[in-house]
């Protein structure tokens, strides 16, 4: 059969996000896949060198539209580490709760994309509806639906509004009440099993070799989670488990996403119970005069897709000297995707890509 080159994306129904893959195919079989990112490249790391420390705070969350919150978190963590700013206890708890809500939201978005792609429209609609309920919580807390701009160096931007605790509990209960429906309609559905099992299979050895983190790695049986390895915010204050699967295929990855969502909800309930009262913000220095001493730091947190790191260098001035984000989609989309697509069929491209949870803006930055 004749080899031919196929451009998959950026405008393609099977593509979530502005991303493209160049496939070399022979018939239905993919011989070689080359990821072609850059459609969303804005040069964040360059732009940040031109903005002061506080001006970067609204900028960074734009790196990843699906889950802006963890990016805010690493930025705040890096600045706090370099400038040695203490964060009040309550702010740590609020951060954790907020980040877990973000994880739920982001996983629901992933579930939407995946279910949509596999043809489970009903589940996709549910997931998007429930995600919207979480977005309502965010709106109430932060004043923004998508870009929350909430975690800033020194704590969080505002305290919980009155009655917000109950709202979180109610919303999460109403979402949690639908888990049996999700299970019967999607996760325990034979069709899902058939469509996802053994697709995009990754061994633990391969996953480690290619720098996978997050559920891509956890689906191969490796309990690697930054929240456990290097606890930040209030993750060491409550007890929780790392959901694991052994098989390393798309099916396992989606199951890990499901379990993580449920674990996050449980974690939020536990955190809400033990959350202390008190201030939530240690005032940062005057933004017009704020200079951070020379130094560099690498901080990381567990975003909903894996290890999100930030390497930041301060030259002692009012602006960062260099920032570099290590985004979890980067190895997922640029290495693992290419490797997994080899010898796969064209029909599985979307399946593999979305199960790896490749978020294009995160790669391009």
């Amino acid at each position, binding site marked *: 059969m004749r080899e031919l080159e196929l451009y998959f994306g950026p405008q393609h129904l099977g593509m979530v996000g502005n991303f493209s893959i160049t496939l070399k195919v022979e018939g239905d079989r993919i011989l070689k896949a080359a990821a072609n990112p850059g459609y969303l490249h804005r040069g964040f790391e360059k732009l940040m060198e031109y903005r002061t420390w506080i001006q970067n705070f609204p900028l960074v969350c734009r790196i990843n539209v699906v889950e802006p919150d963890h990016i805010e978190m690493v930025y705040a963590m890096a600045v706090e580490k370099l400038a040695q700013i203490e964060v009040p206890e309550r702010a740590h708890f609020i951060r954790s709760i907020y980040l877990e809500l973000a994880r739920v939201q982001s996983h629901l978005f992933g579930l939407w994309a995946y279910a949509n792609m596999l043809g489970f429209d009903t589940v996709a609609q549910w997931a998007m509806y429930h995600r919207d309920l979480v977005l309502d919580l965010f709106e109430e807390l932060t*004043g923004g639906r998508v*870009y929350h701009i909430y975690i800033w160096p020194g704590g969080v931007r505002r305290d919980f509004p009155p009655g917000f605790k109950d709202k979180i509990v109610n919303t999460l209960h109403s979402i949690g009440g639908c888990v049996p429906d999700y299970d*019967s309609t999607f996760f325990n559905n034979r069709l899902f099993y058939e469509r996802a099992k053994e697709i995009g299979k990754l061994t633990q050895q391969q996953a480690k070799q290619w720098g996978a983190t997050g559920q891509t790695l956890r689906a191969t049986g490796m309990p690697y989670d930054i929240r456990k390895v290097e606890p930040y915010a209030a993750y060491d204050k409550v007890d929780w488990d790392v959901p694991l699967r052994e098989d390393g295929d798309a099916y396992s990855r989606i199951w890990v996403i499901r379990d993580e969502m449920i674990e996050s909800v449980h974690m939020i309930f536990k955190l809400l119970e033990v959350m202390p009262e008190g201030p939530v913000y240690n005032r940062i220095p005057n933004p*017009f005069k704020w200079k951070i001493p020379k130094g560099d730091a690498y901080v990381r947190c567990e975003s909903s897709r894996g290890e999100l790191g930030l390497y930041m260098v301060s030259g002692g001035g009012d602006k960062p000297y260099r920032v570099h984000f290590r985004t979890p989609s980067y190895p997922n989309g640029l290495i693992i995707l290419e490797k997994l697509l080899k010898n796969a069929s064209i029909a599985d491209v979307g399946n593999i890509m979305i199960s790896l949870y490749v978020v294009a803006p995160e790669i391009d930055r």
Partner: protein
Amino acid sequence: MKEKTISKKGSILSPFKAVNYLFKKPRTLRYPFEKKEPALRYRGFHLNDWEKCTGCGNCADICPNEAIEMVEIPELKPKPAEGIKNERPKLDYGRCCFCGLCVDICPAGSLRLSRDYFHIHFDTNTFTFIPKDEKSDKEHFLGSEQYSILKASLAHRKENYEGFSSDIEYALFEPQRVPMPEVPPEERKLSFIEQVIGYNKEEAKREASRCLECKLCEQACPAHLKISDYIKAVYEDKPTESLRKIFEDNPIPSICGRICMKHCETACSLSIRGEALSIRWLKRFVADSIKDYKTALELRVSEPTGRKVAVIGAGPSGLSIAYFLTLKGHKVVVFDSLPGGGGMMRIGPPLYRLPIEAIDKDVNHIASLGVKFRFNTTVGKDILFEDILKEYDAIHLGIGTTVSRSTKVKNIDKAHLALPFLQANKIAEPVKVGKEVIVIGGGNVAMDVARGALRLQHIQYPGQDVITKTVSLENWNELPATKDEIEEAKAEGIQFNPGWGPKEVKVENGEIKGLLCMKVKSVFDEQGRFSPTFYEEKQTCLDGDMIIEAIGQAPDFSFVPKALFEKLEFTSQRKVKVDDNGQTSIPKVFAGGDIVNLNLDAVTAIADAKLAAEGIHRMLCKR
């Protein structure tokens, strides 16, 4: 690590459970018939309260996207003294990212975000606008009856729809100032120890870091000092650079850093919702932290021009003009009747506010530049004005107001006058005070007198009961003295009797027994001129064995020959009239300071001197 094992393959029939959703109520929000209100903190379009907005421009400075531009609004009147510019922010929604940093930095709290977010238009030019709110813009902010979502835009907005707004707890600026270490009132009233201790380096740096660099203060300062620059230099730990910035406009920082009337702090944008930046104390910190001005400043004096300038009066304006003109290469001689420099500064502010060393530091520095001081020389007595006029190319009058006014009530000749009293306390033998002192007046001089008298009482009658009280025409809210002064005086135990006017001094056996007072009806007449009226029947008598009058001063022009004095023009407010160059109606004669301006303070005198220095320089170069 639960559910580690892979779950079963699942059933093909299980999805049919979803069928029961057919019988549930639809979840769809039937927009626009059903609405979901945005959250109370929603970050939508901007609102700006034009009455509160000062035009400081902090929002424009912090905006990461340069979406905010300050535009001049011609209809608005700038009020530099109150720190209000006639500029207002203009937003570009082709740039704005609705982050709300502008809200968190707004010192006035005037900028807020509303819960409105609809603006849909085919023309990109409509996306820039100048935000207002329902207070100043009734036309575009509509009540719920007139408001329709389908028409909603930047010009069709809902009133009372505030979203994300400023909260001082979470503001990006620090509203509290670093407390100034002071000697407590119980201790300081016992002696003339300097009340304010001064910031140390750490405190000064911390205080300097609060400055938002909006430069409203520079507008308000009569001498337009580069305040934000020198404060920035303090923050950056560069005191020499800071001092250089100060000396560009103010050659007497050691004096000014203690007694300046701090017009800047009134205008400071931080003072709207918090405490103003301690600009004066920071200036004092800079002046005090540098031992030797001359080596630090490395000033360069211009080539000598051969012109000679006489400066009469070594007060703030005289010192300043001497400094500015010397730098320009002119030869300056300063005449003053006092034994040292400083003029009113040398005799007026008591030692607990302005020690002699601080004055001498500034004066000696100016003398070291080549200015010749002729102290103990009274013009008109030791040297004639006419001779000076003949000998010098230009003359600057900075004589100040040296004659204390008197109330001229009955038996007032037994009372003391403020200036001689203060002068004696500061540079000569202190006056013997009584145990119960009455001070007439409510201004800053009266406060100085009262607090000085109190200290003398404690020194002269240690351990005994002593009282100092003040009587003033104005009532509490109108007292001309600054708030700080009144608070400090109260803390030291001065008694206040505002709203009373003196009628006569009660004298028995040639000794003062008290002051008879009448209740004041009004202080000013309808035209705003000073013309007090009294309720004659409401009278009270204050006991006391000593009375000091501190109701104001007048200049003494007795040294000017009559023929010349007649040529000297005055304004309607009894001030010497000067033109744009600082020149009086007599050619070659310039004037500045208290005889020219109405503020009657040092920094305005410096501003006058700066102007006159330019004028004199221009005149001398022309010839």
